[in-house]
């Protein structure tokens, strides 16, 4: 109460003064009324002002009063210099906002623990080993039978939980004609109880829901999905959802906080693992394994045990792999088990964006440092103009600490405004970046809460920023020597020296940012100018399923129907579009043992080459009687790899499958290389085989899925989507279009991360360059102002403009070169850490270093121009008379 009244009096100072004066007046009046001498009475009060100050101090919080005064004074100072303040606030706000956004992304993806019990003892299993190209990789996919063995082995030490990769699929709550998309994740029945999660509605799975394959047709939906899709309708319990051929009953809604185990994807529907059709297959790896370690259990023995169990499983399975080369067989068993911390969950997005986000964080931190250096220089220049004011304050008795407080408060005010503005920027920017991460039809869904973690980071950042740019000017202000200062003579060089140091740092950081931006942009350009081998423009893809299978004739009839649609030029069928899937086999020529190198396959219909605008180098296209096994068209790399570059037309090869079966194909055509599954990987040896397939007995296979490729002309390919869907459903209800996209989207998807990195890095490079140029300009301008007198005298005694320009710019350009040299060494030293993010670019390539250096020098020249002009225009007569 008492403290609070003292606090309130701080903000009602006038009223307090008035009250004290009134009390004194009443006293004097009483005394006079009591017959005392008025003059004598007044005399007893002495200095009424001092008495009032004393009483006032007793009744208010003195330090708070000082702070209040400093705040008001600081606010007035900021208002007085509107342009400087605006520039400082905007640059800091941008930098703080960008840093906070980067933190939000990194926090949401990597740091924030899953909202489950035991998140701190949550781990994920993975295996490290060579992939089919021999490159060391980490695999986190497992087959269900392997999982059950490991779960039994880990008993008493850890609880293992299977979670499938969350995938987007078609589903419906009504008929097949009203399909919608949803994210589905299969999970162990034990997951909800182990995670200590409670249902919002109904019940969650238990171990009993995960026992017999196909016998537990139940689904739990996530709270997020429940609100989005069902508007929190409690009637959702008991409804049936159709996913593929399964019908599942919704039995519960999960807790509000839980959105699945994959940051970046919000699971909509959870199903028991045992309901997955692949649950008994030994050759299908469709799940991740999470482990909740029991308290006090060491990781290494468990890892070794699981390694053995998994290896035994793989070895047993591999016994049947007679169709695999010795080398590939050994490679497949060379995987080593890892147990990795997974407190914040595991997702593909984490792996793809870990380095990218960290480097983005580094870039924005550098931009923040540049902005801080800028503001520090602005403040130093300002402090110079306020030196007399400070000296005066010291002379009339202000303490050093009060001066420090004065300057710090002013800077904190600046930082606070910037932080507020930056918060607004971060509010918008973080979700914006997330929305750019995935293809538009399948956006990443990263939960980005703005809670105490973000708030704490923002506050700490603001504090650090304040100290970074505010501490030096504050200390300098407090160390002022009133005598020298008020005399007007001073030693300006020390101030300039610190400004030049900051400029050098700015230039160095700016160079690093420009250098990285250049690398990322070059990477993106290389990647997007990779030869595709086909024409991706105006190509619509209709991913189509026929649950009961259809004959090749029926498929080509449907293709014919689609061909009749106006605007469609060509139609073809493939098992899937290029850049979206993969199918491999060992290759054997002349019944030789299977090769170490894999061949890659795609089944296509006659006319596919024409639709893709791939020309034949040799031989002919498929016709309607060709089949697989039977005929094949191969790529140039395939010829080089398996036929030693000799013309293969008429020769044969066998596709050898792991379990030993062989499918004979006669080569009837050769085509140029085309991108197969990824633009990042080297060109693969590809064999195209007919969509018309025969089984082991030579009977025609009824394909249950495929993709129609439609080359359109003169219209936006996607504008046909609805027409095509309806046409397919009307022509033959057995066909269902699952997805419509364009080939161009698939190509663009290949470069999403690189595009994102390049555009963000370019943006920050521009900001960094702008800030550095403004900083340079400011310092030069300041030094010209400081030396106006000297320059005036020099001009008066006949100095030429050239020598004046040299006088002003020599030091600054020396600084720029020192900064750039530091930047170059920083860049070269750190470039190997980004190499994995680059494609087709060497970080040590001199051209990558020269370009940013040239840009920097150009910017420095431009920034120096106004100051030089100003110096050249100094009129000695006016200048010297003013003195």
């Amino acid at each position, binding site marked *: 109460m008492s403290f609070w009244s003292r606090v309130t009096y701080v903000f009602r100072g006038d009223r307090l003064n008035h009250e004290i004066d009134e*009390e004194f007046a009443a006293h004097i009046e009483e005394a006079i009324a009591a017959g005392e001498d008025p003059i004598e009475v007044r005399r007893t009060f002495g200095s009424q002002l001092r008495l009032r100050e*004393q009483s006032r101090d*007793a009744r208010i919080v003195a330090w708070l009063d000082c702070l209040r005064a400093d705040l008001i004074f600081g606010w007035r100072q900021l208002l007085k210099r509107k342009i400087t303040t605006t520039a400082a606030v905007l640059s800091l706000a941008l930098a703080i906002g960008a840093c906070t956004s980067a933190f939000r992304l990194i926090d949401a993806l990597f740091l924030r623990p899953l909202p489950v019990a035991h998140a701190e003892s949550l781990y994920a299993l993975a295996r490290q080993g060579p992939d089919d190209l021999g490159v060391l990789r980490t695999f986190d996919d497992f087959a269900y039978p392997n999982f059950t063995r490991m779960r039994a082995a880990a008993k008493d030490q850890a609880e293992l939980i299977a979670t499938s990769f969350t995938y987007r699929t078609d589903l419906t709550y009504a008929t097949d004609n009203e399909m919608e998309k949803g994210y589905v994740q299969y999970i162990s029945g034990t997951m909800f109880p182990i995670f200590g999660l409670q249902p919002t509605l109904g019940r969650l799975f238990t171990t009993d829901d995960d026992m017999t394959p196909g016998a537990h047709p139940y689904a739990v939906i996530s709270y997020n999905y429940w609100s989005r899709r069902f508007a929190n309708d409690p009637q959702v319990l008991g409804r049936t959802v159709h996913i593929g051929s399964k019908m599942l009953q919704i039995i519960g809604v999960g807790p509000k906080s839980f959105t699945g185990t994959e940051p970046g994807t919000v699971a909509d529907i959870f199903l028991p693992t045992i309901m997955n059709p692949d649950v008994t297959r030994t050759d299908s790896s469709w799940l991740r394994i999470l482990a909740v370690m029991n308290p006090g259990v060491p990781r290494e023995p468990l890892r070794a045990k699981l390694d053995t169990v998994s290896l035994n499983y793989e070895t047993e399975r591999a016994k049947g792999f007679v169709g695999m080369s010795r080398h590939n067989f050994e490679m497949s068993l060379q995987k080593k088990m890892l147990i990795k911390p997974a407190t914040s969950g595991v997702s593909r997005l984490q792996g793809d964006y870990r380095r990218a986000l960290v480097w983005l964080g580094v870039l924005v931190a550098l931009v923040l440092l540049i902005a801080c250096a800028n503001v520090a220089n602005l403040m130093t220049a300002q402090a110079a103009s306020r030196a007399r004011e400070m000296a005066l304050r010291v002379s009339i008795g202000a303490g050093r600490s009060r001066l420090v407080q004065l300057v710090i408060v002013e800077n904190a005010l600046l930082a606070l405004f910037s932080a507020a503005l930056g918060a607004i920027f971060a509010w918008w920017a973080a979700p914006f970046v997330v929305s750019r991460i995935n293809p538009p039809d399948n956006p990443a869904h990263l939960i980005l809460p703005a809670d105490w973690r973000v708030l704490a980071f923002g506050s700490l950042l603001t504090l650090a920023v304040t100290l970074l740019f505010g501490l030096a000017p504050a200390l300098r202000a407090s160390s002022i020597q009133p005598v020298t200062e008020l005399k007007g003579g001073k030693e300006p060089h020390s101030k300039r020296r610190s400004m030049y140091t900051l400029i050098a740092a700015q230039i160095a950081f700016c160079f690093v940012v420009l250098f990285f931006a250049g690398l990322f942009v070059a990477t993106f350009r290389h990647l997007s100018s990779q030869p595709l081998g086909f024409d991706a423009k105006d190509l619509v893809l209709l991913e189509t399923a026929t649950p009961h299978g259809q004959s090749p004739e029926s498929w080509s009839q449907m293709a014919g129907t689609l061909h009749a649609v106006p605007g469609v030029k060509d139609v073809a069928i493939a098992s899937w579009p290029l850049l979206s899937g993969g199918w491999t086999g060992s290759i054997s020529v002349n019944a030789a043992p299977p090769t170490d190198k894999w061949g890659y396959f795609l089944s296509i219909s006659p006319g596919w080459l024409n639709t893709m605008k791939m020309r034949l180098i040799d031989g002919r296209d498929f016709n309607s009687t060709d089949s697989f096994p039977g005929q094949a068209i191969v790529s140039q790399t395939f010829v080089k790899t398996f036929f030693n570059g000799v013309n293969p037309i008429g020769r044969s090869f066998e596709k050898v499958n792991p379990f030993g079966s062989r499918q004979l194909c006669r080569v009837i055509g050769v085509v140029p290389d085309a991108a197969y599954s990824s633009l990042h990987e080297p060109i693969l040896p590809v064999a195209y085989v007919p969509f018309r397939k025969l089984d082991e007995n030579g009977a025609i296979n009824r394909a249950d899925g495929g993709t129609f490729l439609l080359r359109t002309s003169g219209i936006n390919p996607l504008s046909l989507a609805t027409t095509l869907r309806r046409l397919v459903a009307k022509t033959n209800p057995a066909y269902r279009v699952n997805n419509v996209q364009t080939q161009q989207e698939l190509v663009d998807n290949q470069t999403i991360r690189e595009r994102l990195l390049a555009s963000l890095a370019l943006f920050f490079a521009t900001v960094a360059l702008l800030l550095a140029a403004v900083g340079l300009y400011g310092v030069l301008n300041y030094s010209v102002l400081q030396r106006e007198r000297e320059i005036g005298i020099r001009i008066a005694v006949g100095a030429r403009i050239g020598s004046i320009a040299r006088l002003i710019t020599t030091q600054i350009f020396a600084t720029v070169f020192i900064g750039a040299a530091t930047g170059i060494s920083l860049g070269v030293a750190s470039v190997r850490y980004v190499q994995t993010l680059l494609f087709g670019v060497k970080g040590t390539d001199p051209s990558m270093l020269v370009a940013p250096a040239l840009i920097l020098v150009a910017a420095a020249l431009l920034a120096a121009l106004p100051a030089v002009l100003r110096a050249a225009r100094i009129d000695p007569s006016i200048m010297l008379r003013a003195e």
Partner: protein
Amino acid sequence: MKKTDTMQGSLDLLVLKVLSRQPKLHGYAIMTAIKHISGDVLNAEVGSLYPALHRMEETGWIRAEWATKDTDRRTRLYQLTAAGKKQLDAEVTRWRTVSSAINRVLQEA
């Protein structure tokens, strides 16, 4: 306040005592009461009295309220709070201990 005044240590005690006898006094009345009761020996200076009053008010020993007099001017009246009563007892005890000790020293010497 930093003046070396013989009353320095005991001003709080005197003010509290005066207010315990007669509640609701203004500053001038407190000053004259100290003067009269002590038979013109003790004299509270204005310069010490008001800072002391305001300080004790903030500490919570005394409470102040504004009263309008017939002359239309407001005056500030002080009275003891419960905490002030306790403080007064403590101060009286302390004063007695100290003064009897000093007396004893004077008698011995």
